[in-house]
């Protein structure tokens, strides 16, 4: 048998008293796309950070093409042919595409930048990805998220890698862009590059991956040669150690009176005259392509983006003021799609993050009662099953999915009765997704209204009562969820339905 491209055995790593990895093993063949699967906090990102030199290991062996690998920093890994694409994009937004692609390995002549060669190499890498459309000279800030991701991949490619690691690459992509990414991955595979692919979308893994490894609590609990031949139930069982069925089954809830009327709300560019009505006990889904203005709609309603026209009303009366603190006072709450940049205080502890928007009830004579704050935090940590060492763990040390749970818990702690959730399940594992859907159902049953933005149509169709589709800043169609199909939503979102009609 030929030697494996990559072999990790019995890797261990602890952070303080947390065992992040407790004997993780992984084997990847040349030209294999390998899925790395596991719950939030299972240790996937940690394992990949160790492999890419961003983090040290306590014990365990790593062999690359049969040779022992000792890494102390990411540059070394890159020289060895291991490239990592992080869970969140890591680009310098004000530099050009070419500069980003070759960051840290700029071609030089007599110590000066060789611009010509830089352009050429960047466009060659982009071309290989089938992304000729991206001009190497534009600044990255002006690209869409999907395009930015292609730039990241191009960056991984220029160093001629043997292994490319993708940590949740599709969590901010639409389905069409995901398809494009898959094409890129297959192209890499055909060139003999090994790809390690981390995702909580198991269907995606099935579509694009060959072998798989499942991590649970830092241990490898199962692996197989063929992801597509294995049933998802089996994999989920390995992941969480129990059956997870009916993930979209939400508690019954009934729609009642109208609680919030959004009347012809317009923003600077998007949204454009969006009107919608939320009722008690309603889960209202907003679908659309990336850039359709769903996020902007939520932000305008909540007062984070300026509203240039229209109004947000309750029982026919305009809500007073227009800024976030006034919206919060009126019972609205927003979950940002961007937890790292906007959603959380990464250097503060979990308890602060959880209670920040509503500290008043936890005070006596204006002083925060830390015991009360802890208790409140513990309650929500328990309720949502956040994996953390406790309320005073630093936020940045939680795994991606667990950070997201804390961001959601903050809204619950605040007790908002109109919840604006922007991609709430981003980066969250199956079992936790199910938990969040149930939570949304339960909140609806309590008479709250949920406005739910998602790019993942199955979940919208699965849990929403009503679905609206946005296109270029406008809300083009609103119907009960039962009257929609995935196909119909896509047609409405792209505008294809109108050109036919």
């Amino acid at each position, binding site marked *: 048998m030929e030697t494996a491209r990559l072999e990790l055995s019995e890797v261990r790593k602890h952070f303080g*008293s947390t065992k992040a990895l407790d004997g993780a093993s992984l084997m990847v063949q040349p030209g294999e796309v390998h899925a790395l699967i596991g719950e939030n906090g299972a240790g996937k*990102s940690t394992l990949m950070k160790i492999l890419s030199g*961003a*983090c040290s290991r306590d014990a365990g062996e790593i062999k690359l093409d049969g040779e022992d690998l000792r890494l102390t920093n990411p540059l070394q890994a890159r020289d060895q042919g291991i490239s990592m694409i*992080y*869970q*969140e994009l*890591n680009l310098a937004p004000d530099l050009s595409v070419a500069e980003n692609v070759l960051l840290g390995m700029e071609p030089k002549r007599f110590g000066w930048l060789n611009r010509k060669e830089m352009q050429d190499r960047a466009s060659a890498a982009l071309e290989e990805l089938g992304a000729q459309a991206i001009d190497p000279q534009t600044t990255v800030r002006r690209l869409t998220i999907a395009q930015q991701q292609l730039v990241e991949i191009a960056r991984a490619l220029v160093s001629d890698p043997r292994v490319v690691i993708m*940590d*949740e690459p599709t969590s901010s992509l639409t389905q069409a862009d995901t398809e494009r990414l898959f094409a890129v991955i297959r192209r890499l595979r055909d060139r003999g590059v090994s790809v390690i692919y981390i995702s909580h979308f198991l269907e995606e893994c099935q579509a694009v991956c060959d072998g798989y490894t499942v991590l649970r609590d830092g241990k490898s609990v199962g692996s197989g040669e063929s992801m597509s031949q294995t049933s998802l139930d089996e994999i989920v069982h390995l992941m969480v150690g129990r059956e997870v069925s009916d993930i979209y089954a939400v508690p019954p809830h009934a729609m009642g009176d109208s609680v919030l009327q959004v009347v012809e709300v317009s923003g600077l560019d998007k949204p454009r005259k969006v009107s919608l009505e939320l009722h008690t006990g309603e889960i209202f889904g907003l679908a659309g392509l990336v850039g359709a203005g769903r996020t902007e709609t939520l932000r305008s309603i909540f007062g*984070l983006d300026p509203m240039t026209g229209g109004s947000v009303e309750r029982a026919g009366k305009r809500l007073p003021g227009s*800024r*976030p*603190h006034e*919206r*919060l*006072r009126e019972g609205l709450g*927003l979950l*940002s799609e961007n937890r790292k*940049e*906007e*959603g*959380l*205080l*990464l*250097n*503060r502890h979990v308890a*602060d993050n959880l209670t*920040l*928007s509503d*500290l*008043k009830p936890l*005070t006596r004579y*204006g*002083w*925060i009662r*830390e015991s009360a704050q802890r208790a409140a935090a513990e309650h929500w940590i328990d309720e949502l099953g956040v994996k953390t060492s406790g309320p005073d763990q630093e936020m*940045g*040390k939680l*795994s*991606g999915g667990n950070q997201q749970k804390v961001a959601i818990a*903050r809204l619950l702690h605040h007790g908002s009765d109109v919840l604006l959730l922007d991609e709430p399940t981003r980066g969250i594992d199956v079992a936790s997704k199910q938990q969040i859907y149930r939570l949304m159902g339960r909140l609806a049953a309590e008479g709250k209204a949920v406005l739910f933005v998602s790019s993942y149509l199955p979940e919208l169709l699965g849990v929403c009562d009503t679905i609206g589709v946005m296109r270029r800043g406008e809300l083009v169609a609103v119907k009960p969820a039962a009257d929609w199909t995935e196909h119909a939503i896509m047609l409405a979102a792209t505008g294809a339905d109108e050109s036919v009609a």
Partner: protein
Amino acid sequence: MNKLTQMMQWKAVRQVIEPFIGLFVVLGFFAVSDVSHILFTGSTWNLLLVQTVVVALGAMGMTMVIISGGIDLSAGSVVALSSVVGAKCILLGVPFPLVILCCVLVGGLTGAINGALIAGLRIVPFIVTLGMMGIARGVAKWIANNQTVNYTAKYGNEHPVRSILERTDFRHFFPLPPGVWLTAFLAIVMILVMRRSVFGRHVFALGSNEDTARLCGIRVQWKKMAIYAIAGLFFGLAGLMQLSRLNLGDPTASVGLELEIIAAVVIGGASLSGGSGSILGSMIGALIIVVLKLGSTLKGWENHIQEIIIGVVIIFAVCVDRFRHSGLLKRSRD
């Protein structure tokens, strides 16, 4: 389990003693030198504390500003302005309590202007307070007619302002002048405010991520106004202390004081990128600076040596801090 509780206790202990370590190191250095018999006497410590007052008060305001992610370069000029205004008030026969109020309010006013410009026009704090540094200094000189404002000719040495920081016993540690007690009291209040009040939490939130703060309904612009205005009050009060110490209003005094204050805050463990820092740390930072200065004077080192030493200490303190948080630096969390 046992080990865990032990670890947590150790952590709590460490949090309390850690800021003091730097101070112990500096004191230890002088303790083994030939000046220890002078340095470690009650009367020297009395003097030390008196000399720390101005920097310590300034550092209270500055710590808050720096934690919120800002900076205030106008501190030194505002101290000078406040002391000149105080001296002028005395000359005009303004009653003592009102003199105090004037000094403090002058500081508050400049702070409020800083805050209004930073919050209202969204100009970066560095620029606004750099401007205010020049403006306050200029106004101080203008009011003072480009000379020191001397009221002793009119009132002799006995004006009550003098008593705020006057040392009465040169042989013992006690009694400490009221200004020292007031500073200690305010330090305790500020420690509590920053650690345990909603306002304090909001300041930290603002410094660690302004967008999150906004998202969580914190009125970001108002808070900034308040932070700079309160910091200004502290600088104003520091000006009053300066006035009491010098016994005259000097518009050209306290040049570069803002840097000393910032140094104290940074030595105390605050990060200039905001979101971290502590009042206790800054107070100790202020003490370290004063001990270094006094110690150098006792050793007969010249001014330029002192300056070099303080510079080295600042860099060293920041390095130590980096080292302690190195985990934080290495990590690129997802």
